[in-house]
């Protein structure tokens, strides 16, 4: 019973269950909340990237529109101002160079006639005349004037990898186009726009033209090496004026989250992209933090739950421990009241129950004592009265015989012998009773049990053979030692031998076994023990009598006192041993005694 609580599997223990329930109560809401938070953060980041990119595209559109409008307005106002064609060359050069210097917008400004001849230019290169000498170019510009009133080219990338845009305004006189004010607009400021929109350390922002060629990129190397956006889907979408977002692999190991949007009606696109590993790093950090928080919470909750559960379980354990103590015979053990709850009430009830049980036991003991006394009185009166009667009768016969003149000596000796035997019988009875009622103190010593058996059987062998009983000893002739009181063990062996002989009135076989074992269950533990067995081939004991054979004064024999096996039981108990009994009707009975070696 002491081991009962220890035998409960950990998972079945109350403490474990309470602990788990506490942890689950803490963890599940945290887990759900954490996941919701992380998912919300991820969605928020995606949306932010998309929003930021749309804003980026809008800003780029606004910027390019502004650059274009500013450049056009400046060129237009310059073209119309006092008609630049009416100025002398130096004034023309002053005007366009001042415009060039004052506005950090132009890469070049030139005044041309309608044949493409260069009148004045901000360029100091002598080779400039060649550029404008192409007739098709001038024709195209003049056609645009006729059609739209102005001209501007697509954005292109110059030899120096700079984004450029050509703008031309007609110079008119009396409503007729007499010249062209031609400006190359430097859109390098777009680079600043993309730089401002770069996200993270590894993010990229770029603007590409309708062929996918980068015109602005946070990674200048891609501009200077004239790279293109290799994603036909995005380029096609941009051409259709559509925006969107995607996650794609830029290289086998780099996954990008990207968002793109068209820039105005120019057919260009703006795109922001960032490695997912970096873009979603905040979400991952948040997840990590949540995990950390969960871990710490679970740890704290576990600790709290452990102490709290232990606090709850402690009185229960006290209750269980008390019951175990009680069950082991400590009837005076009482459970201290530690709580005022149901468990405290249970402890009180248990203590009350224990009180009642003791009362009941005492009552039972008194009844048993009275019963025993009655039985003892009955047995003693019977066992003593019989020899006394026999003694009285034989003493009367002896008196008559001694009164005869001629005394028959043989008869006198016979009756005298009977008297002596009866007295001895009474004496043995008193000795046995005393042995049970007031057993002598046990003095243990190392004893070779096999030698004790040999000694006893040697004394009984003649008598048993006379009764047709053969005694067999089944054990090795080597000393089998045990720490016992030799006198008492001698008594046990003698009693069981005599009991077996008496159980075979018609003869038979008594087999005495002796061995040593390491696995005998004595008390609450397994131990090394000496095992003695006495197996007779008598009639056996009925099942209903099996439980009584060790009772005081229980005997099925007319001449028995009913104390022999009770004495055996008592001596074995004194040695912390154990006695087992097996019996089968008409086959025999076997007593097995386990005595601890130490």
């Amino acid at each position, binding site marked *: 019973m002491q081991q009962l609580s220890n035998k409960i599997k950990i998972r079945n223990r109350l403490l474990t269950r309470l602990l788990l329930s506490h942890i689950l109560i803490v963890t599940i809401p945290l887990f759900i909340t954490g996941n919701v938070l992380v998912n919300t953060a991820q969605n928020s980041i995606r949306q932010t990237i998309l929003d930021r990119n749309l804003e980026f595209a809008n800003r780029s559109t606004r910027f390019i529109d502004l650059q274009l409008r500013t450049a056009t307005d400046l060129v237009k106002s310059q073209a119309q101002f006092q008609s630049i064609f009416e100025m*002398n*060359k130096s*004034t023309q050069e002053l005007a366009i*160079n001042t415009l060039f*210097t004052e506005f950090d917008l132009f890469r070049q400004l030139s005044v041309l006639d309608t044949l493409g001849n260069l009148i004045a230019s*901000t360029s*100091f*290169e002598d080779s400039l005349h060649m550029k404008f000498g192409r007739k098709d170019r001038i024709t195209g510009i003049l056609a645009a004037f006729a059609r739209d009133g102005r001209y501007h080219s697509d954005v292109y990338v110059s030899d120096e990898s700079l984004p450029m845009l050509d703008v031309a305004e007609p110079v008119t006189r009396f409503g007729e186009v007499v010249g062209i004010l031609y400006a190359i607009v430097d859109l390098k400021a777009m680079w600043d726009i993309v730089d401002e929109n770069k996200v993270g350390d590894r993010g990229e922002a770029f603007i590409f033209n309708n062929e996918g060629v980068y015109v602005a990129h946070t990674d*200048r190397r891609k501009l200077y*090496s004239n790279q293109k956006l290799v994603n036909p889907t995005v380029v096609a979408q941009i051409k259709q004026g559509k925006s969107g977002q995607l996650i794609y692999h830029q290289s086998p190991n780099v996954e990008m989250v990207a968002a793109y949007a068209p820039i105005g009606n120019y057919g260009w696109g703006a795109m922001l992209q960032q490695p997912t590993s970096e873009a979603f790093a905040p979400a991952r950090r948040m997840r990590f933090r949540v995990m950390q928080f969960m871990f710490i919470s679970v740890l704290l909750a576990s600790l709290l739950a452990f102490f709290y559960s232990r606090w709850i379980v402690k009185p229960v354990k006290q209750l269980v421990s008390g019951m175990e103590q009680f069950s082991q015979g400590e009837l005076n053990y009482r459970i201290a009241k530690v709580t005022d709850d149901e468990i405290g009430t249970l402890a009180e009830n248990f203590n009350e129950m224990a009180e009642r049980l003791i009362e009941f036991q005492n009552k039972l003991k008194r009844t048993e004592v009275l019963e025993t006394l009655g039985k003892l009185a009955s047995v003693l009166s019977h066992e003593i009265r019989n020899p006394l009667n026999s003694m009285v009768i034989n003493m009367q016969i002896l008196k008559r015989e001694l009164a005869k003149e001629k005394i028959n000596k043989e008869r006198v000796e016979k009756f005298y012998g009977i008297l002596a035997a009866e007295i001895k019988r009474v004496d043995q009875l008193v000795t046995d009773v005393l042995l049970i009622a007031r057993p002598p103190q046990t003095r243990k010593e190392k004893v070779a049990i096999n030698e004790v058996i040999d000694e006893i059987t040697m004394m009984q062998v003649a008598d048993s053979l006379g009764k047709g009983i053969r005694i067999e000893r089944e054990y090795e002739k080597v000393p089998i030692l045990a720490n016992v009181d030799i006198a008492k063990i001698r008594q046990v062996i003698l009693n069981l031998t005599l009991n077996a002989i008496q159980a075979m009135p018609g003869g038979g076989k008594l087999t005495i076994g002796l061995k040593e074992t390491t696995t005998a269950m004595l008390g609450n533990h397994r131990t090394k023990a000496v095992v003695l067995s006495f197996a007779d081939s008598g009639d056996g004991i009925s099942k209903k009598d099996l439980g009584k054979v060790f009772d005081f004064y229980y005997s099925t024999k007319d001449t028995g006192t009913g104390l022999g096996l009770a004495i055996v039981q008592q001596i074995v108990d004194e040695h912390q041993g154990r006695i087992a009994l097996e019996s089968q009707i008409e086959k025999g009975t076997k007593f097995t005694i386990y005595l601890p070696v130490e």
Partner: protein
Amino acid sequence: MRANISDSGRRAFVLLAIWTSIVVIPLPSAMAQGVREIVVGDLVGRTDIRDLKVLTKQGLLPVISAGNGRPFTVFNRSNNQLVLQFHASADIGKNNPNTIVFKFYETERALISALILDEVDTAVLESEESAREVAGSNAHFLPYPLPMPPNTVKMIIYNHRRPPFDNPAIRTALSYGINHEQLIKKVLANKASLAKGPYDDNSPLFASSLRSYKYKPRVALQHLHEAGWTDTDSDGIVDKNGRPFSITLFYPKGMRIDEAISRLVKINLIKLGIDVKPRPLSRSELDKKLVAGDFQAVLTDHVFKENIESLSAVFAAKGEQNYSGYASPRLENYFRFYDQTDDPRQRKTLIQSIETVVNQEQPVTFLYFKWLTHYMVDVEEFENFRHTEGPNRGNMRPFEEWIIKKRVE
């Protein structure tokens, strides 16, 4: 005679020499260990490949024209590239460069592009803006500010052999007609100081009495008119004897700052009725023009050392760097007096007197002293490329002291 590099572009060459300096260390197995090259970017407008000099511990060593005794040979040369290879016997460490490739670019933007595309390991950039652009676009590069040598002055040299530049009134008009403050503010973002003469005001030789040629277009016009230049035909350009006043101003090709200065000079002088035609030329073309006296005006840098020789080289009638043909009897006297006295105080006074005469006669128009330039280095590939202590702190180390992080096999 070809123009000495220090005449018209000494500053550029000195700079180049600082960061391209190579110390000769005989190393037996340099070549056996393979080519370990460093690619230096430069501009054709800044450096003439034929006049390239490399500073070693022995001094500035010309790359092309010098004689024997150099630790390197020119392995390969074209119009825009020159490869120096150290002799096999040179003692070059296994992690130091043994080959230097100089690449020359037409424009600063092309050089920036080469830096960003990792085609060049190091280069000097004039403006902080360009340096920032490279560093922002290519994380391999870091910009390091490089203080200009003292008295590095930007100036316009006029050819006194050709009228009207022989007339001090015209030169004075030109100096008054150029808005120095505007170009310092607009082009150099105020990172320069106004120049009154060859020495800046930190120099012990600086003459505090020098006249400041601040922008005074009216005074300039007055000088022009006094010299007989007026706009008789109302074409906006002053003329004299039927000849319009037109100046061809040569400036170093591909140098953004020089182009911007030329443009402002053009704008300023057009307002006076002077037609300025800026024309970019490579350093070699510029040097040729200077030596041949085939020019009207040249925009260039010059470093004036704080000694009489440096002044006389430029301003003495027979000065070896006097490409303008300027000759002043007063100055000649001062140069002579200087040679005749040993008194330091008198000598200082004489130098300051020379400064005063130059200031009054304006043989050149002094524009400004620039403070800083910037050199870029691929710090992913090189280390130990600059002095971190001592008198040369901040300056580049000789190339043989550079250490290649990633060994080139």
